[in-house]
């Protein structure tokens, strides 16, 4: 007995305080307090009481602490828990909606297909009423706890489903071979049916003289404390999916368990039989009565009628009698019962009337059972008229049939056949790489079940450890034992297993979930739904909360009877997940939608910007008035954060070759220090992306892509290089650089205040790409002008982003500088006629028709898209992207509006704005080629009216490009007024740390957290849970090259070179560094912030000396880093990544690149002071997102940020 008599708790049921015993289930406590009606049925609102007491049937669904549809029979009591009944008005005991039970003739099977249809307009009313009166629990208003769901990913070698004797035996045996074993069991404690069976086979004292429950305890104890066995208790395996993925749900917590082998030891369960009023509270399954008795310590009734169909039922009667229940009769469906059975002798000795060849035909009573009608059966098993007797009782315990828990096995490819001799589906074939053991296979004696379990566990483990050949003798021994137990066991009478006896009477429920009666099933078959799959959809049997556990076999038996066929011929419905109801929130999991922010994000927030989404990026749409921002740029100077632009670093002697291949225009003739616009197409000639190409040296390029195109273009470039052996390396450095576009007629004056660089058009002409210092920090300056003014696109290391923004704003103050957002930029570039890929182009746009023939060099040799573009050129253009101006300036049609020519839709508007500069309504549109020449008129259909528009030659603004190129210029005499603000480096987590009250200090130029709470507290939290240190400032160098190992061997000796996915600690030029070998051809060099440049110099020197193809890219600014330290590190990580992080896969001193809450992350494992420790590196723009998901997931483990002071303390101890 699991209850602890000494400890009492108080629970509340419909606002009524109830005293309960610790260890009891809620249902047990309520039952002890006299509650008999636990729910109201779906359709007729009939009272329903406890039936299975095992978490399978739909009868005890209640709202527990705001969570609806909790099965209270397997939910343990907790002090102060609030329990509410569901689906009843005004109360569960007096439910007025019970009136539907009286008018059931109006609600025949499938009534919703026949009624409540006309008039159609009333459907909303019908729907509201139906939804209120029918159904189960309802969700309350959103509330924190009840809406919180968790997700976790686990890996194992052998999964064992079911914690009964077979499962326990399998787990123990498999684990003995050293493989990882995970046992999933739906009950609160291990042991399966042994937990509550004190008699029968299980109670026959074994050699050690143990009873069933003692055996269960000793088997379970065997598993405790074994490092390679993990038990997930109180959890349901609800689905078996491709790749041995097992869906496991424990309340609000979903576990994706990935196994290599699975042993199903799901057992069997008891199910009800069909007779009149068989749903009356007081009708209980035999196992349910025993569970109440043994597990909750509650007597299920005072006077019981036991319905038996096998010896199992007789044993039940004996156990009830032993517990002090008066058994008024045992009705056994079998024609005769052997009087020599010990249990029969025992029952007769106790004076229990044993009626063979008797069936229960009706439960008597209103609201609860007061008696039962029994009838004698003839030789065909049909009731003999006039033989009925009535017996008073308050409990009808039914033990008349079991069903194997086959659903998951079906999903795993196992097959079952109906065996008429035992009236059961029995396993006929197992699926690939799975095993079955125990009662689910039809085994019945404990010895057989244990031997089967051990054998299945051993075979599963042997599959994974073919080296363990010494175990083959063990397998033979188990085979032998199994043979002995199977042959040696006295065949127990399995009796009848029939779910229904044909007899008159109504209100004979087949499906309790959906209130389907025997008559409903017969009517449905009469209406033609005779196939089980159509019958299922029409009557909805198996579709309720029990998912067919209670009703499937009964319905199949009825379908067989009504169709005049056998159950084997009728077959079963397809078993699909979920096997057990799962909350949609649990399937969805926590909200993990990645968000990217630039390094200047916080500055925009401070300016009160209105945000917009561009892919995953957050961008400022507008700060105040877009028109004012446009004017500010045209008349004075503006600045915009363009850090979202994709940025790719391309290096290698074949870089030109690769770029010539993917760009439509020429790259080879681009001079060093110059930048050029470029377009990429796919092989069907469609524009993929556009951006700029800057040449930094002979074999070093810096590309920009669209804001949403960075990853796709990185993939595109690496794909075209894959397998070619070209010496070229592409590194995505999007997040490594902050980028600010400074544009406007006074841009040069502003910039001149911050740099000593000669900004004259001679020294820094239009389309120059030069590196120089601005405000004391290194920048790459591209002289380009998307918005059509004199402009400087400044790229600096991301940690300086906010600083550069501040410095520019400060320097521009006297020139009336304005920050401008995406909206103003869209207007400005439209005035200039620059396209935005994916806004002005779509999946049919080629650059020739997009009016960019100048960027397509068909004469340069092969490139991606060339053959198709040649063809387009040869056949002539069909459409063209043109600039237009509305004839009526007040009309600004919506983007996407149709272009109408001769009354027919012939194109679309791709961009449309009112131009504050020109005071006109302008736009770009795709029009048929005949309408593409300037001054042609066409119509734009908007709001169901056609408005005239005139084609205008692009650009609308500054057609000569005089403003873009800027005039001559000589530096003002007051060139630079030192000192400027002090450059500060801000890491990705700086604002998050500050928000938690961190004390920031400058170390190596970076603003870092010295302490957050107190050193003692932070140290303690990291020892008990998880501590998190910001390691973003550390130096990170990305070294790529096919023979990178050769290069490293030259630097540190062959022996020190780490193998792929491993780490090595070495000295480079007197500096300690960690080499993380990310791949055969890639190493990430980790060092201190201070030593970064020195280490980079050493490696670059070595690269220069050799003649291999190696390249080094500094990714310090690109990657943000967090070090996790503490005993619960892995627990939090496995909530965020689906990758396998077990010690065997990611041991100490190794690394792995994994998906973490949908973003790419690098995990570097470096345990410290005996504590597991993982460094986590993510691309900087994802930093705050990663921080947020990490702290959210880690809350339950007491995650806390650590300052440098606490980290020093921890490291010193190490």
């Amino acid at each position, binding site marked *: 007995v699991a209850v602890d008599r000494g400890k009492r708790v108080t629970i509340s049921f419909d606002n009524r305080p109830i005293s309960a015993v610790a260890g009891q289930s809620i249902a047990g406590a309520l039952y002890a307090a006299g509650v008999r009606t636990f729910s109201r049925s779906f359709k007729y609102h009939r009272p329903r009481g406890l039936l299975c007491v095992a978490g399978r049937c739909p009868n005890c669904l209640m709202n527990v602490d705001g969570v609806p549809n909790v099965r209270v029979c397997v939910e343990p009591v907790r002090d102060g828990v609030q329990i509410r009944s569901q689906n009843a008005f005004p109360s569960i005991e007096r439910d007025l909606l019970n009136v539907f039970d009286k008018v059931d003739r109006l609600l025949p099977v499938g009534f919703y297909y026949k009624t409540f249809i006309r008039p159609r307009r009333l459907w909303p009313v019908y729907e509201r009423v139906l939804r209120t009166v029918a159904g189960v629990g309802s969700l309350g208003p959103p509330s924190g706890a009840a809406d919180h769901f968790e997700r976790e990913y686990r890996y194992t070698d052998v999964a064992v489903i079911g914690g009964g004797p077979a499962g326990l035996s399998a787990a123990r045996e498999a684990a003995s071979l050293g493989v990882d074993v995970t046992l999933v069991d739906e009950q609160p404690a291990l042991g399966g049916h042994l937990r509550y069976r004190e008699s029968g086979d299980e109670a026959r004292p074994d050699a050690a003289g143990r009873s069933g429950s003692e055996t269960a305890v000793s088997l379970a104890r065997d598993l405790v404390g074994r490092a390679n066995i993990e038990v997930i208790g109180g959890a349901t395996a609800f689905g078996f*999916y*491709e*790749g041995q*993925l097992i869906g496991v749900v424990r309340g609000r917590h979903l576990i994706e368990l*990935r196994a290599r082998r699975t042993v199903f030891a799901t057992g069997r369960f008891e199910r009800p039989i069909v007779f009149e009023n068989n749903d009356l509270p007081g009708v209980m399954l035999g196992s349910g009565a025993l569970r109440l008795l043994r597990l909750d310590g509650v007597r299920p009734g005072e006077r019981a009628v036991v319905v038996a169909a096998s010896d199992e039922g007789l044993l039940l009667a004996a156990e009830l009698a032993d517990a002090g229940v008066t058994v008024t009769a045992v009705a056994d469906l079998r024609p005769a019962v052997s009087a020599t059975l010990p249990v029969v002798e025992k029952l007769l000795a106790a004076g229990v009337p044993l009626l063979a060849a008797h069936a229960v035909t009706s439960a008597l009573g209103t609201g609860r059972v007061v008696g039962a009608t029994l009838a004698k059966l003839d030789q065909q098993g049909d009731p003999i008229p006039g033989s009925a007797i009535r017996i008073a009782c308050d409990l009808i315990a039914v033990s008349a049939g079991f069903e194997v828990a086959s659903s998951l096995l079906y999903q795993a490819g196992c097959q079952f056949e109906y065996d008429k001799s035992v009236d059961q589906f029995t396993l006929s074939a197992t699926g690939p790489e799975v095993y079955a053991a125990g009662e689910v296979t039809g085994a019945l004696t404990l010895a057989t079940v244990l031997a089967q379990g051990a054998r299945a566990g051993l075979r599963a483990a042997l599959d994974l450890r073919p080296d363990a050949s010494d175990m083959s003798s063990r397998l033979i021994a188990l085979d032998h034992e199994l043979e002995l137990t199977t042959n040696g066991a006295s065949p127990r009478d399995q009796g009848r297993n029939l779910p229904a006896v044909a007899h008159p009477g109504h209100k004979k429920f087949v499906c309790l979930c959906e209130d389907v009666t025997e008559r409903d099933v017969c009517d449905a078959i009469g209406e033609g739904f005779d196939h089980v799959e159509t019958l299922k959809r029409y009557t909805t049997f198996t579709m309720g909360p029990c998912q067919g556990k209670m009703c499937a076999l009964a319905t199949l038996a009825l379908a067989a009877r009504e169709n005049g066929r056998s159950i084997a011929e009728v077959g079963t419905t397809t078993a699909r997940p979920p096997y057990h109801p799962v909350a949609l929130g649990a399937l969805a999991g926590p909200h993990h939608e990645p968000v990217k922010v630039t390094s200047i994000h916080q500055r925009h927030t401070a300016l009160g910007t209105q945000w917009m989404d561009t892919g995953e990026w957050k961008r400022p749409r507008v700060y105040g008035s877009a028109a004012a921002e446009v004017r500010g740029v045209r008349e004075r100077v503006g600045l915009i954060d363009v850090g979202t632009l994709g940025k790719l670093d391309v290096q290698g002697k074949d870089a030109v070759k690769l770029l010539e*291949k993917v760009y439509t225009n020429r790259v080879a003739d681009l001079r060093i220090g110059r930048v050029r616009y470029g377009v990429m197409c*796919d*092989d*069907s000639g469609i524009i993929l992306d556009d951006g700029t190409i800057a040449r930094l040296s002979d074999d070093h390029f810096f590309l920009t892509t669209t804001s949403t195109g960075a*990853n796709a273009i*990185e*993939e*595109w470039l*690496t*794909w*075209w*290089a*894959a*397998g*070619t*052996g070209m010496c070229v390396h592409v590194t*995505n450095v999007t997040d490594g650089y902050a980028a600010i576009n400074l544009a406007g007629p006074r841009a040069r004056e502003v910039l001149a205040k911050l740099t000593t660089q000669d900004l004259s058009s001679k020294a820094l002409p239009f389309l120059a790409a030069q590196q120089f210092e601005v405000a004391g920090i290194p920048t790459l300056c591209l002289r380009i002008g998307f918005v059509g003014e004199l402009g400087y696109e400044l790229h600096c290391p991301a940690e300086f982003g906010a600083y550069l923004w501040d410095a520019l704003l400060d320097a521009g103050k006297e020139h009336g500088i304005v920050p401008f957002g995406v909206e103003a930029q869209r207007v400005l570039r439209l005035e200039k006629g620059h396209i935005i890929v994916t806004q002005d182009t779509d999946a049919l746009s080629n650059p020739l028709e997009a009016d960019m023939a100048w960027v397509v060099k068909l004469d340069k040799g092969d490139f*991606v898209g060339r*053959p*198709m573009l040649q*063809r387009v050129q040869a056949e002539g253009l069909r459409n063209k992207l043109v600039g237009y101006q509305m004839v009526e300036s007040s009309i600004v049609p919506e983007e996407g509006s149709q272009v109408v020519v001769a009354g027919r839709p012939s194109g679309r508007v791709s961009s449309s704005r009112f131009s504050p500069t020109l005071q006109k309504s302008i736009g770009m549109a795709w029009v048929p080629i005949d309408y593409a020449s300037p001054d042609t008129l066409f119509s734009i259909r908007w709001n169901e009216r056609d408005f005239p528009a005139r084609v205008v030659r692009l650009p609308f603004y500054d057609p000569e490009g005089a403003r873009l190129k800027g005039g001559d210029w000589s530096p003002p005499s007051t060139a630079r007024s030192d000192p400027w603000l002090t450059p500060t480096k801000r890491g990705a987590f700086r604002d998050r740390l500050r928000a938690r009250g961190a004390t920031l200090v400058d170390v190596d130029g970076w603003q870092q957290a010295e302490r957050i709470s107190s050193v003692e507290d932070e140290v303690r939290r990291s020892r008990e849970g998880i501590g998190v240190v910001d390691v973003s400032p550390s130096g990170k160098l990305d070294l790529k090259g096919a023979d990178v190992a050769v290069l490293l061997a030259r630097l540190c000796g062959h022996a020190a070179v780490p193998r*792929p*996915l491993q780490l090595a600690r070495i000295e480079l030029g007197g500096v300690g560094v960690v080499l993380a070998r*990310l*791949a*055969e051809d*890639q190493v990430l060099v980790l060092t201190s912030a201070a030593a970064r440049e020195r280490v980079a110099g050493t490696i670059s020197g070595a690269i220069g000396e050799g003649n291999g193809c190696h390249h080094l890219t500094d990714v310090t600014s690109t990657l943000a880093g967090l070090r996790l330290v503490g005993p619960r590190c892995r627990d939090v990580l496995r909530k965020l990544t*689906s*990758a*396998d992080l077990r010690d065997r*896969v990611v041991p100490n001193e190794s690394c*792995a*690149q*994994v*998906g*973490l809450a*949908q*973003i*790419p*992350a690098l995990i570097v494992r470096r345990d410290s002071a005996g504590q597991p420790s993982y460094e986590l590196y993510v691309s900087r723009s994802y930093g705050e997102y990663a921080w947020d998901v990490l702290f959210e997931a880690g809350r339950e483990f007491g995650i806390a940020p650590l300052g440098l002071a606490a980290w020093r303390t921890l490291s010193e101890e190490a």
Partner: protein
Amino acid sequence: MSFLLSCPNCGPRSAYEYRFGGEYNPRPRGPVSDAAWADYIYLRRNVCGEQVEWWFHRLGCRKWFIARRDTLTNAVIETYWPKVGSSEAVEAVSGAGNP
């Protein structure tokens, strides 16, 4: 879809970590007929059974590799790096249609 795919670098991972790059479809080299070019751009074999295809380890090492997979059962028979060498022409290995 819940099968595991083994990245030649990172090992077995959930298929969700990857981007499917389409069936292996070599780009014709040199002058070819319009029909052959149209086949390359627009037609896929779409086999029911074993297929050679591109995958990109999007959330991992961000490298392209080739897999042989049974499209009916999702059983992955083999994964490997695209082979470098003269036996297979450059275009026949990389740059095959839209990934």
